[in-house]
């Protein structure tokens, strides 16, 4: 199916397009990892894909839900304080918030979770904000 972002957010709003691009290219890596896993069991571990690929400036982490919704996180390489566990927990929080959004009967799967529909996914957005600020 189409790979369009349901939600995308970056802290310094400059370079946003670059992040868009990075995330998009990382989708290929995600697909690769998914197919490599084959018909893996549903497990938290398998959901977390780990470091997708490092660039000189950034590290890209991936996570995929059971319904093939992909979370991609781009972290600055200079931020060495972030450990794998923390990344995992961040993904877990993302996943939880996402399921909360899904629980809303007014949310159509496939809708964007931000921007035009200001009222939808506010909690999701707030959660992301809370995660991003300490990181920066």
């Amino acid at each position: 199916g189409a790979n369009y972002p349901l939600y995308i957010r970056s802290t310094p709003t400059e370079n946003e397009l670059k992040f868009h691009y990075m995330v998009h290219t990382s989708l290929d890596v995600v697909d690769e990892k998914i197919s490599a896993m084959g018909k893996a069991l549903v497990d938290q571990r398998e959901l977390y894909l780990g470091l997708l690929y490092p660039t000189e400036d950034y590290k890209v982490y991936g996570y995929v839900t059971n319904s093939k919704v992909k979370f991609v996180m781009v972290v600055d390489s200079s931020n060495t304080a972030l450990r794998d566990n923390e990344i995992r927990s961040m993904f877990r929080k993302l996943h939880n918030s996402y399921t909360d959004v899904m629980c809303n009967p007014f949310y159509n799967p496939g809708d964007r979770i931000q921007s035009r529909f200001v009222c939808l996914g506010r909690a999701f957005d707030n959660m992301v904000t809370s995660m991003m600020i300490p990181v920066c």
Partner: protein
Amino acid sequence: MEAAAAAAAGGGCGSGPPPLLLSEGEQQCYSELFARCAGAAGGGPGPGPPEAARVAPGTVTAAAGPVADLFRASQLPAETLHQITELCGAKRVGYFGPTQFYIALKLIAAAQSGLPVRIESIKCELPLPRFMMSKNDGEIRFGNPAELHGTKVQIPYLTTEKNSFKRMDDEDKQQETQSPTMSPLASPPSSPPHYQRVPLSHGYSKLRSSAEQMHPAPYEARQPLVQPEGSSSGGPGTKPLRHQTSLIRSFSVERELQDNSSYLDEPWRITEEQREYYVNQFRSLQPDPSSFISGSVAKNFFTKSKLSIPELSYIWELSDADCDGALTLSEFCAAFHLIVARKNGYPLPEGLPPTLQPEYLQAAFPKPKWDCQLFDSYSESLPANQQPRDLNRMEKTSVKDTADLPVSTQDVTGDDKQALKSTVNEALPKDVSEDPATPKDSNSLKARPRSRSYSSTSIEEAMKRGEDPPTPPPRPQKTHSRASSLDLNKVFQPSVPATKSGLLPPPPALPPRPCPSQIWAIMNSVAVNICIQVVEWSEQVSEAELLPQLSRAPSQAAESSPSKKDVLYSQPPSKPIRRKFRPENQATENQEPSTVASGPASAATVKPHPTVQKQSSKQKKAIQTAIRKNKEANAVLARLNSELQQQLKEVHQERIALENQLEQLRPVTVL
């Protein structure tokens, strides 16, 4: 108003009292005070004070009562007040015109400042007169504006105002959206259809307090909430929850309330009546109070409120505290309350207010009473019929005098009756919308010319029932005039095309469809009504005249089976006592029509009414009326047909789209 008042003051200056120069602040204050006195004098429930005051300046006077109260509130000794009254010229002219009033106020200010009560005193600069707050509604707002604090002052005002509103019974009843504490009490049975009678409890009080004028504010608030029964704001709605049909209509767009920011969290507090109402609605969706409403059910329900999807999703986010995709009773009440608030113009809060938290709601309101009489005739299987049912009951009672549809008979047939009510309700709103002159109000429905409403109603019902498989029970002894007979023709059309199976959508839009059996029950009952009612106003229709019409009717209604028609026609002529038909008709609702297959034609021709000649002109009129009615009914049916066709097409398309989606999704899951 200030201009008028100033002009009046200026105009009146020349004669009598010396010229009165008011500063701007004084002008404003005085005019407001004057308006209060004039308006309060003009009769509370009447138009607001400003309207009264805007009458030609010269003719406005403040009644002695409020003025006296006001003056007493100034806490000046009585003798001083007498002096003031004399000086200002009111005693002389005999009334408190604007001029006199302003002079009096100025003298009061002078007296309060310690100056002697003389005309000369008012020539100098004076502070505004001060009036102590009293219980009276108007007077609380009097006094030096500087002295009035914000909310603190307004709170006692609110409470007294609410009390006073509780007392003002008829005023409240006239108003659609009355002070919240009153309205649900005033009409709980009909409150479901009149959704906006459950406004926020303190919202309107606050509105009033914050608004300049006391009286206009509630009217303002009330106007947008007027709920036209047949208004165009129908449900976007989905089929299952038809009971929201009238709910939808009542969710008309409201105007923005002013000054929301000054409100405390009172708007988010649910009153007892509101709670009861929400609980009833919950019950309509989910009989078990301790269980959940699923997301899709709630979604359908709330979508009928006509709020935008983003707003609804936001409300859901706020109210579904545990994010489980389902609403408990408390969550549901919170969501409902938020929707009501939003409909009334309140901006949605950033977070769930503390008074709407589920824990708070559970603690604040003990287990709700499920035996509310609202649910007496509600059937769980037909939740959609609730609101229409109430409305129907109202409508039925109004109709009782014409067509005695006994509620008791309806009580007998359970589902049928409920379906009847729902479809009648649907039909009625459509009638209302069709009738341009009819004010859109449930009362207006009652007032409408019965014959018209009934004939079209019957036909619509007939339409709905048309597709029911078993042959419709033609009433064995049905007397009918031409009009009713023709209606019955259409009523008993067993081969009504499938398009007519849908329910008459409510004017604005939506399609909930009772199942065919219900439709039949409805149609039968309604047809009975029509017959009876028509019979009432044309009692001496001769069978002889009937017969030609009857024979003509078959040609018009091409679809009805001739045999049935004959059966029908045979019945009317032979019925001396027509009112009894109703119970009989109800009883024979589900019987086969074949029972009545006696020699129809012969019976029809037999009885020339003795009074035929006398009644010929009357009958002609009746015939013409009937013809007209039938034409209208034809138009209605044609329109209904086209609408249903359209809906059918849409549904087909949806189905195709869904099937495509299913196909597309299938391979994906095979990962």
